[in-house]
Structure formats: C-alpha cells, structure tokens
C-alpha cells in the first residue's frame, strides 16, 4: 500500500511535467513560429494600433451627444451609446461584445423576459434600418439580427442581415450600394468544402475594410 502510494505520487508528478509543462510549451513554441498571426488572436491593427480581431465581432456604437455636443451619461454615470450607422452592426450581445469576460445570455425559450428583449432587439433593428430601406418589414428581419449570440462576440451576421444593413451603410457613407454589396460578398465566409458550417458575413473584417476604403 505504501509503495502504491509512492508510485501514485511519482506518477502524478511525472505526468504533470510531461502533460502540463512540456506539451503546452512545445505547442506554444511551434505555434508562435508557424502561425504567429493566428496564435496571437488574428489581430487587426491600424497605424500600428490594435483595433480588434478578425475573429471577434466588435462593438460598433458611438456616444450619444447632448445639445452642447457633450457625451451624455445615464443615471449610473455610464456613457449612453447608440449604434453607429456607418458600420455594420454585430449581432446583439449580452456582454457588450466583451472579449475579456465572456458569458452566455441564458435566455430560456418560454420566458416572458426573452420575448420582451427579443421584441426590443427587433424594434431597434427596424428603427435603425427602415429609414434607408423603406420596404423593410418585421417578417424580413432574419432571426440572427434579433437574438443574442452565444459567445457575445460572434463575428458573423447572416447574409440576409448584411444585405439589409448595406442600404444604410451605403447611404450614410455616400457609397454606391453595388460597391458595399461587393464588399459584403468579399467578406462572406462560405461553408467548409461547401458543406460544413453556415455562411456568414464577417463584420470585423468588413467594417475594417470600409474604414480602409474611406482613407
């Protein structure tokens, strides 16, 4: 029994060194040499400054200004923001698109609270987009645009969602709709081998490309 106990302790320590140090450190070493861009978060930089990740849907909002041009605050002292119409908007996020502290929204299927939130998302989407796409009706709004994503940082929106938002982005940026639609197509990630996964428009890279175009 005593010998077995000793064996158990030695085994645990030996395996910890192999699996807990050697393995992850070797993988890290290879990854940093072979795939440095991917291993460090597929960073998007602008003028040498980190502005986001190709894999994370960002928060594309702007502060709401009062009559004097100052940012407004709510009763908790938090700045009030609204979606910036110049950008394609990510899917609703319970975390405010946080990549540093993620959690699920955990909205149940039969909860009145879920209905109310979803309704708010729908109204907000219609308010933001109907001025630029007059015929837009609730039934045309794809479900991904009004439901919380899982990660809170879903980088993709559906193609239908992007086609609606393209009207707004083109009008606000004074670009031809065809040019924006072309950019949307360029930033659409298709299915793997045409079969696996769902197509989605990458909001992070698309918005970055729009900004690059404007410069």
């Amino acid at each position, binding site marked *: 029994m005593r010998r*077995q106990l000793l*064996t158990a302790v030695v*085994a*645990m320590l*030996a*395996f*910890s060194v192999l*699996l*807990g*140090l050697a*393995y*992850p450190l*070797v*993988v*890290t070493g290879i*990854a940093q040499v072979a*795939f440095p861009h*991917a*291993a460090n*978060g597929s960073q998007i930089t602008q003028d040498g400054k*980190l502005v*986001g*990740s190709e*894999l994370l849907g960002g928060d594309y909002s702007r502060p709401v200004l009062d009559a004097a041009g100052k940012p407004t605050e709510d009763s908790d002292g938090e700045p009030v923001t609204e979606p910036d119409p110049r950008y394609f908007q990510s*899917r609703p996020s319970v975390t405010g698109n946080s*990549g*540093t*502290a993620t*959690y*699920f*929204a*955990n*909205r*149940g*299927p*039969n*909860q*009145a*609270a*879920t*209905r109310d939130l979803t*309704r708010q998302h*729908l109204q907000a989407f219609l308010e933001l987009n109907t001025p630029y796409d007059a015929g837009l009706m609730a039934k045309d709004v794809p*479900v*991904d645009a009004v*439901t*919380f*994503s*899982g*990660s809170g940082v879903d*980088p*993709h929106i559906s*193609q*239908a969602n992007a*086609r609606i938002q393209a009207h707004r982005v083109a009008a606000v940026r004074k670009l031809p709709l065809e040019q924006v639609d072309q950019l949307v197509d360029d930033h659409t*990630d298709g299915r*793997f081998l045409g079969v696996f*996964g*769902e197509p*989605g428009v990458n909001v992070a890279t698309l918005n970055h490309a729009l900004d690059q175009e404007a410069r």
Partner: protein
Amino acid sequence: MPQGFLQILLFFAIMVALVPVMGGYMARVFSGETVLLTRVVGPLERLIYKLLRVRPAEDDQGWKAYAGSLILFSAAGWLLLYLILRTQTIHPWNPGDFHSGTWDLSFSTASSFVTNTNWQYYGGETTLSYFSQMSGLAVQNFLSAAVGIAVAVALIRGIVARKTGGGLGSFWVDITRATLYVLLPIAFLGALVLVSQGVLQTLGAGNDLFAVGPVGSQEAIKLLGTNGGGFFNVNSAMPFENPTGFTDMFELGLILLIPMSLPYTFGKMVGNRRQGWAIFAAMAAMLIVSVTVVYLAEQHGTPAQHMAGVSTRAFDGSTGGNMEGSEQRFGIAGTSLFTAVTTATSTGAVNSALESLSGIGGLVPMANLSASETIFGGVGTGLYSMLMFALLAVFIGGLMVGRTPELLGKKIEAREIKLVVLATLVTPLAALVSTALAVGTKYGKPSVYAEGPQGFSESIYAYLSQANNNGSAFAGYTGYYQPEAGNLGAHGITFADLLGGITMLGARFLPILFVLAIAGSLAKKRVAPAGLGTMRTDTPTFVFLLIGVVVLIGALTFFPALLLGPVVQGLTTRLF
C-alpha cells in the same frame, strides 16, 4: 434543412470510416504490441516505467490492486489540482494577477476535473492563471481520460481471460500507454490544426479588447478526452476556441474519435468483431435519433421568439430557427449536432448556450444524460457503462428464454448481476437525490437564475450533468459570485459547490469500483462453449434488446422529473 442533414450524415460517414483504423490501433496498443509510434515514444515509456518501478511484462494486478492503484492515483491528482487552484498568487504565467480560488469553489473544480466532468462554476479567462489552466486542469483532462480507458480495458481483459487466476493487467502500464500512444500524439496534432485556424496559443498577456492564453493545447485534449472544460467561459462558442465551420467539425471529430472506436477495440480484443459492431450499432442508433430530434426542434424556433413577432422561418440568406444563444458560423445544424454529441458522450463542451434551446431541444440533452453514458459516453466510460447494460440485457433475455445468461461464453450469475445493478443505479440515484436536495431546500435557491419550469430545468440539469460526469450546463445555474474580473471579493455558494463535488466524485468512482469487481469476477470464470440454446449477443435482435433496456431504465428513472421542466415547456406556448 436538406443541407443540414447532408452535413450531419457526411460527418457521421467520415467518423464511421475512421472507427476500424482507430479501434484496431487501440486494440494493438492495449495488447502490448509494438506499433509505429513505439520508435518515438518507446524511450519515454521505458523511462516512466523505471520511475514508477513497474515491470510491464510481469505485473498483473487483481481487481482489488488495480482499483487501489486507480483510487490512489486519482486522489493524488485531486490533491495536486486543489493545491494549484488555491495558490494562484505564487504561480508563474499569471499575467492577469488573479487571486486564488475560494475553498468551496476549488473543491468543486478539483472534483470536477479529476472525474472527467469539467463542470465549471468559474469563468476561465477571468479567474484562472495560465499555469492553473495548462498545468492543473489540462493535466487532469489527459489523466482522467486515461483512467476511463484503463477501466474499459481492464473489463475487456476480465471478459477474455482464458485461464483462472489471471489478473486484469497493470493499471500503471494502461494509463501510461493510453497517454503516450493515444491521447498525447492526437492532442498534439489536433492542437496544431486548431491553432492554424485561429485558436489562440500564447503565454503573453491579454489586452483591453480580448483575453488570450495557451488555448489550443487545452482545447484539443478537452475534446479528445471528452472532458469539455473550456478555457473561456463560453466554451466552444468562443471564436478563439472554435473559429470556423471546419474547426467545429474537427472538434466534433475529436470528441467522437475514441468513444466511437472503443466498441471496435472491444470486438477485436474479444475475438468477435460482430460483437463490437453490435454495441456500436446500439449506440449509433440512439445518437442519430437525438441529433434529429434536437435539429427539428431548434429549426422550429421558440414561443418567446414567435410572440415577439420574429419570423423564424428560413429564407434566402438566413437559416431561420432558434438562433438565440447560437453562433452564425455553425447555424442550426452545427449547433444541434454539437449539442447532441457533447451530451451523449459526456464531454460537456458546448458551442451554444444550452439554456436557450427550445423546450424539446433542451429535453434531448437531458434524455442523453439520462442514458448514463451509453450513447458512446465518455472515453472508456461509455464502453464499460454500455457493457453493464449489455450484461443486464443478457440477464433479462436469459430469463425470457429460460437459460443461464452468458456473455461471450462467461456465465453471468447472481454476484455479477448484483454488482451490475449497483453500478447502473449509482448515477441516476446521485442525480435525483442531489436534485431533490437542491430544489427541496432553501440552500439551492441562490444558484437558480430563471423563473418557472426553466428554473427547475436548470437545477435538474446541473445534477444530472454532474452525476453523469458530463459538465454541460443550463448555465444560468451558478455556484459562484464574482463581483468583478478576478477572484478578489468573489465567493462560492458552498451548498452547490459541495453537493455537486460529492455527486461527481461518488458517481464516478463508485461505478468504477463495481465495474472492476465485475471484471475480477468474470476473469475467474471458465469459458463455456457456445451451444444451441446460447442467446447470441451479436445479432440485430440483441441490439434492439440492448436499446430497449437502456431506454426503459433511463426513461422510467427520469421521465417523471423531466415532465416538470423541459416537457412542460415543449408542450406549451405559454411564457413564464
């Protein structure tokens, strides 16, 4: 929808093609044969045997010695992990300067990872140092998986033993070979594939926009070992853990690779491949039904969405369906497949918020859990759990035809059946008793998030998942308060942490002891030649009988409780 089903079918076709390759390979590894990899890992293997003073050719443990080694090894692992979680302030690789975990939360987490459960009451990226993640948790991801495989292999040896007085093999050799020949090489390659697609792998500090860390190395073994504990709080929904449609399928492949191949390994080692495929067929049939049901339910959307005036139909450019808590790149099909696979295999990794599944969609994971790891199950665990049900089916079949029940020539007698009943009842009992304690007393209240039946679903899911060593969650349920990022000012909900921890430990190690006892008892029996009256266990009839026994026991045990949660929600359009 046809596109979704094509995706699902193609995925399963690829996996079935891999089964003979992987299953055959594992049979050779655990028969002690020399394989191609021996050239690479042979020296390391011999070094470990030397350190442990194991003589692989001679050591042959009886079931009690085998079980003793297993328990001591797991206890040492538990203690080491607990100490690591409690001493974060002195760790290297802690760029977030996270404080140590509280005692109750660390109890839950250590128990969770040593039992292959990976139930998570903590948020990884906001509370754990890189050292805790890669040198604490990930080590147990490997070793708890190796322990599961070892138990399955020991049971197979008990079934095939041809001479009386033979042992079950050496526990130390089995975990060493499971680690060096199966888990480590595949995890290594898997990690590099994942990182090449965008999964993080760095020891540097995070920035204002996102957390980073050594994710890929942990991700690969989290799936391959059917562990499921994510580096990030939102698990495989996080793009940094699972960035594309390809990685989603690759991760699903890692999850299923070993549990799907082990029945083949079993067939090969007992010298009857049909027997292996029969077990496989019973498991596969149940998995296909659960994937289909969850997919159909999710594509329909939920009452809350319909009442909000949202159209959940699919049209050009939109998948439609219940996208709440799901990621666009996986869509409804990818989310449904992941949900069914992860809950059937005892993995518990998720690529969406399970709490946001529709009523019937959420019933499927619970039904999978109610099947006690028989639908492929955890690595090793799935095979030995299913073999317990096979013994039960043989017994029931034997009673029907009036013959002494046998499995592969070994007579199944009173002692074995008693042990089988004990082994199969521990898990449901642990799940139901713990749920009853949580919903029947005031102590379970602080953990619950949602109102009405959803709150009950959260509670029963929590203990069902922990009793099955699964680790997936209706994540509104919590055992932890964290006022801000880091552990400063954080405290655990002691009741939920302790009850869950004890549930996980009991439901993992008690069945293992019973299974090893059965293996020891079978090893002593002579093989009776098959006669005219022998009930064959490798026929379609037996497959149906086996599925029937699993479904009957699972349904009878859990159906009344499930009625109160997901079934109510699935049948009504009412909101709560």
